[in-house]
């Protein structure tokens, strides 16, 4: 209760204030929907929204899973040598800077209209934080511990698995936290172009001037982002609980 209540209070207050503002005419209902209108839209279109949410969720999850695995793999490769890093890291930065809106039409050319494009979009938007954070984590290994491993004749592979990777875990999880939200955004953008899921609901509702439905879909997208974020937090708590300051409780 202690954790859930504090963030709930501002949410409830803002919702009530907004409801009043729209009902009393301070804010036009066609510009910002009353919370009650959003709720009604959620209920009225529940089947459509549920189906859309399922599609967006799976695309975001798959895209996120792919960017996690690929991002970590790329970071491991980059961390293996300074030369490799210098040669290829700038290309990794490309994933961060490329405007997804601009390349989404290209994605459609390569993957067609549908799930593959949405997953690709989620992947592209979310992979860079995984690479950057994992790389930082892998490069920040305690040099004394590396010496220790060297002293006892551990091969680079063993050092990677038993030392560098576990040591990098807190940093990797930070990267995953950021990437999880981005995967949802990437999926929605992909859906604008590729045409399905919550992104499509937003696009169509917007054309119909149904701001209530737009907000309902956006709300669900936020819930999805929060759920993914919460999942990473859970994993972080479980794996880091006993040894990392970030998850330590007072003993």
């Amino acid at each position, binding site marked *: 209760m202690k954790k859930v209540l504090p963030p709930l209070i501002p949410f409830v207050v803002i919702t009530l204030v907004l409801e009043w503002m729209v009902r009393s005419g301070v804010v*036009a*209902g*066609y510009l910002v929907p009353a919370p009650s209108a959003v709720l009604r839209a959620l209920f009225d279109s529940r089947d459509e929204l549920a189906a859309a949410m399922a599609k967006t969720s799976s695309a975001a999850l798959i895209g996120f899973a792919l960017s996690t695995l690929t991002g970590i793999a790329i970071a491991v490769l980059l961390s293996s040598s300074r030369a490799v890093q210098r040669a290829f890291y700038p290309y990794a930065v490309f994933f961060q800077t490329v405007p997804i809106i601009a390349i989404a039409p290209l994605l459609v050319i390569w993957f067609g*209209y549908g799930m593959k494009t949405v997953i690709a979009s989620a992947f592209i938007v979310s992979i860079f934080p995984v690479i950057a954070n994992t790389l930082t984590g892998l490069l920040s290994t305690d040099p004394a511990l590396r010496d220790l491993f060297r002293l006892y004749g551990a091969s680079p592979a063993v050092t990677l698995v038993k030392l560098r990777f576990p040591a990098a875990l807190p940093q990797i999880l930070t990267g995953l936290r950021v990437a999880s939200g981005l995967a949802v955004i990437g999926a929605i953008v992909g859906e604008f172009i590729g*045409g399905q899921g919550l992104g499509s609901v937003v*696009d169509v509702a*917007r*054309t*119909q*001037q149904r701001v209530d439905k737009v907000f309902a879909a956006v709300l669900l997208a936020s819930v999805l982002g929060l759920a993914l974020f919460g999942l990473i937090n859970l994993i972080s708590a479980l794996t880091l609980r006993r040894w990392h300051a970030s998850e330590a409780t007072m003993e």
Partner: protein
Amino acid sequence: MMHRRSFLSVCAAALAACSKPAKIRLALNWKPDPQFGGFYAAPYDKHGSDVEILPGGAGTPTVQMIGAGSAEFGIVSADELVVARSRGNDVVALFAVFQNCPQGIMAHASRHLDSIGDVLKEGTLAIQRGLPYARILEKKYGFDHVKVVPSPGGDISAFLRDEKFAQQCFVMSEPLQARHAGVDVKVFPVADIGYNPYTTVLATSGAQLKSNPDRAQAMVATVREGWRTYLDDPKPTNSHMHDLNPSMDAAAFAEVAEAQKSYIETGILGSMTADRWTTLIAQLAELGDIPQGIPAQDCFRTL
């Protein structure tokens, strides 16, 4: 007596000096192209107006901008204006550029299709699903056999690559582009299924009309002049718009400007009738886009 008169005359002089032209923003719902030619050609300065034209793009929310007051005037389509009114947004139409709706569906001529219904029998259709005519098509013919995808917004590359790909278009725009790229197309105007809303309509808010009736009147007169000028000689304005929107080449500007004339010049430029609005309102009510009929008179003003 003497004091009052001189006081009044001083006030009048002061007021005259104070009435500098207030900044007027005209928001477009697409990039500068021939459909807005008359607005760019209009002699605003001559009528003492300081008008700033704000170019738009995909999804520019001109109806909402008018309602929220972030633009004094905007370009909308008649159907979105009706929907906006039904949601409590007091937008009013003043001048309709396209007397007949120039929207349509284009398909590869090699498919030898006869009617719009045939387009929906197979392949892919790129269309904005939220648009009323999309839903009229769905209601009438069903989308069960065609794959519906979002409209690529003026980009015809997907269309060119795939023979079974059809997409929504402006009758005088994308088809010309396709022909230039070597693909022969067949165009099915939306008006053929009986849906013909005014398009590229100059609109303002009811509040603006009430507080500034002279300004709206001046605007309409100026715009009408601009369209006359543009229809007679589009070249200088096309050149200016091409600078603003280089994505369309000069030759295309000229071609489209010529092709669109028949949709615009059918009588008095920009005029609207209550009948057309009534028909549109009934169609939207039947679709379920608006809860019930709204008075046609409220939708437009003839200034």
